[in-house]
């Protein structure tokens, strides 16, 4: 039994934190927040690529570091802490995982090295309308090998070079690789509740598309990709939730009311204790998810769903109650609480909402009970 980061992994995480504290301070996040023309920080993206993080889980033969998913999780936790405004999740947790999961050798050799090198930004395009993602929702279709239809919202779709698109061919759905620089693709940038992350509406009109994975396996593959992304996103959420708790802690110690620190009042003490409890539950579930992801265990669907449900709850609760702990200051633009409040909501939806994941979790549990 060894249920924690190894010393190497801890070292990697410490290094990642140090790196991000210097390269992705809150000013960098606000730089993207306050500039409508920017949806990510190109400099940070370049620096992260130079660290090799984009290829952390990519095999060395394809230009990656060939580390495991737990190492990637350690990096994700720190990216979450720093609210790094870069298309890391879309490119690494979604597109890279999709290619590694379902790509042909040719596709892997073509895309993975470029991704690892930071030459390609990816995005994962599944949603077309409000509500949980179901196969029935998918209207985008392939005719004569060309893709037509609309995907909205697509996180990082405004800056991505490569999209993994869930589309319909005849009666069945499949995944497709689409180069967004090509013809027949129009992008429209969309305002979101977290301006530190870019989102677009993608419209395809007979755009060139190359199938990724087996025909008709689209929904099944999308769900496998979502399971992997959910685990890695959970680490970003846990990182963000811990940071939100730390902000609340230090404010509670320095802010005085009625002659003593507000942290000496049980209303605040117990609020922080509740945040801590949810954060620990989320971390433990995330660890289990990472183990399942790393070992390719059959438990992944359950573990990923549990990790996501716990992480969504923890980050949302930590962000809103950390803000509440800051009182009036927390409601101002200048104080950083709202950045975490926004990101908690964004991360809580980008891989599908917690409600949908609870349903998936229980469905898996029933399957397990039946077995």
């Amino acid at each position, binding site marked *: 039994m060894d249920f924690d980061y190894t010393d190497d992994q801890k070292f990697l995480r410490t290094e990642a934190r140090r790196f991000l504290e210097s390269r992705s301070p809150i000013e960098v996040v606000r730089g993207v927040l306050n500039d409508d023309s920017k949806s990510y920080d190109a400099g940070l993206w370049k620096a992260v690529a130079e660290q090799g993080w984009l290829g952390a889980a990519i095999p060395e033969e394809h230009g990656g570091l060939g580390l495991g998913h737990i190492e990637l999780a350690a990096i994700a936790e720190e990216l979450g802490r720093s609210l790094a405004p870069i298309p890391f999740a879309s490119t690494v947790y979604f597109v890279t995982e999709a290619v590694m999961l379902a790509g042909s050798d040719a596709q892997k050799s073509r895309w993975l090295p470029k991704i690892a090198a930071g030459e390609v930004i990816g995005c994962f395009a599944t949603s077309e309308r*409000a*509500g949980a993602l179901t196969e029935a929702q998918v209207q985008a279709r392939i005719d004569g090998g060309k893709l037509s239809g609309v995907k909205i919202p697509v996180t990082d779709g405004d800056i991505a070079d490569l999209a993994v698109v869930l589309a319909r061919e005849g009666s069945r759905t499949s995944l497709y690789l689409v180069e967004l620089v090509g013809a027949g693709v129009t992008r429209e940038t969309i305002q*979101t*509740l977290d301006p530190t992350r870019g989102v677009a509406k993608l419209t395809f009109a007979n755009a060139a598309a190359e199938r990724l994975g087996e025909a008709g396996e689209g929904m099944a593959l999308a769900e496998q990709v979502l399971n992997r992304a959910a685990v890695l996103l959970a680490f970003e959420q846990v990182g963000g939730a811990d940071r939100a708790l730390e902000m609340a802690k230090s404010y509670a110690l320095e*802010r005085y*009311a*009625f002659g003593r620190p507000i942290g000496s009042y049980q209303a605040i003490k117990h609020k922080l204790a509740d945040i801590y409890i949810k954060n620990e539950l989320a971390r433990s579930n995330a660890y289990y998810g990472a183990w399942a992801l790393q070992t390719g265990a059959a438990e992944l669907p359950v573990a990923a769903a549990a990790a996501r449900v716990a992480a969504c709850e923890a980050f949302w609760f930590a962000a809103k109650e950390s803000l509440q702990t800051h009182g009036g200051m927390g409601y101002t*633009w200048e104080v950083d609480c709202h950045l975490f409040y926004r990101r908690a909501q964004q991360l809580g939806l*980008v891989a599908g909402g917690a409600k949908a994941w609870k349903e998936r979790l229980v469905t898996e549990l029933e399957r397990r009970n039946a077995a």
Partner: protein
Amino acid sequence: MDFNDTPEEAAYRAEVRAWLEANAPRTRVGEVSHDDAPNLDASKAWQRKKAESGYACITWPKDWGGGGGKAWQSVIFGQEESKVTTPINPFAIGLGMCVPTIMSAGNDADKERFVRPAVLGDEIWCQLFSEPAGGSDVAAARTRAVRDGDDWMINGQKVWTSGAHYSDFGLLLTRTDPDQPKHKGMTMFWIDMHDPAVEVRPIHQMSGASNFNEVYFTDLRVKDSQRVGGVGEGWRVALVTLMNERLSVGGGGGGSGHGRVFKLANDVATLAGPAAKDAGLREKIAEWFVQAEGLKYTTYRTMTALSRGQTPGPESSIGKIVSAGVMQDMAHTALDLEDQFGIINDPALAPLAAAFQTTLMAAPGLRIAGGTDEILRNIIAERVLGMPQDVRLDKNVPFKDIPSGR
């Protein structure tokens, strides 16, 4: 229990309806933000019209510009006015808190000078109590007022001041003797908000809006005649102001907004089928509805006390704490139901998502402004349930010696 008016109430309501029908403008230009003088003009015109017919400050004596009426009459007028579209009301703080304070603690000259113009809507007031170091702890005011001959010289900063940017006068709580214990050594003044020594800066909220201000005082000179109440009596005077605030029938209106959730539910699907059939969502809708209804009928209980000429019970104190929580929970739940689409903040592309996002970004402010959830629970526990005060370390020591963390 009876929702129907007494004959007397019905007669008054009919009269009010007729008058509103004839006089109420049909223009509302959204909230008062930092650049809407026109809107403000409309508000002032409407206030004057009400005052001239005795519908402004209905319970105040006629010779002060009021209506010389009963509390239940002002309740009924409020109900009926809220049914017609009128300009929003920037006079609430002045007429609800500041001017009543002048009336109870000010000198005769001030009453003469200020009450009527305020009722007529010619002059708008703001309340200058909260400070950066204070927040929930209003009595921690540090803004200094120092004797200077017959005048006082004021330096310091206030924060979270609603309407400061369009106010003509302000009620200002200052510290005049830091060697006294906290609750002594404060003094209240009225000030001219147009004095160049007063600088108003809007506060940029997380939602992007700016409904509040910071107000800075740099060598602001005021006459001793602008003092409201005695030197060192500031806290006693402030309590009068705050008391008036608490007496105003507390929030809880507006319903649960569950209608919007129904709309959403009919619009989207869950993994299991149409959201409208989702038992989890249906249970939540029921819970939100029951809380909103509870607040609505709690307000009715308060109005009943008023119309019986009694002082409302403590039940009115629960309004904001409940409604703010419901708002935040509902918005979060609705966006979760929208799934990825909930990320979109564009009314054209996703009207419901955008609407719920607006609520999501407003809710944290509601949970804080006018008393945080935590402060309100404390108030309920102490004033309503008779629990002991928290242990206080800021009493019976000179204000300057109270730990403040800085």
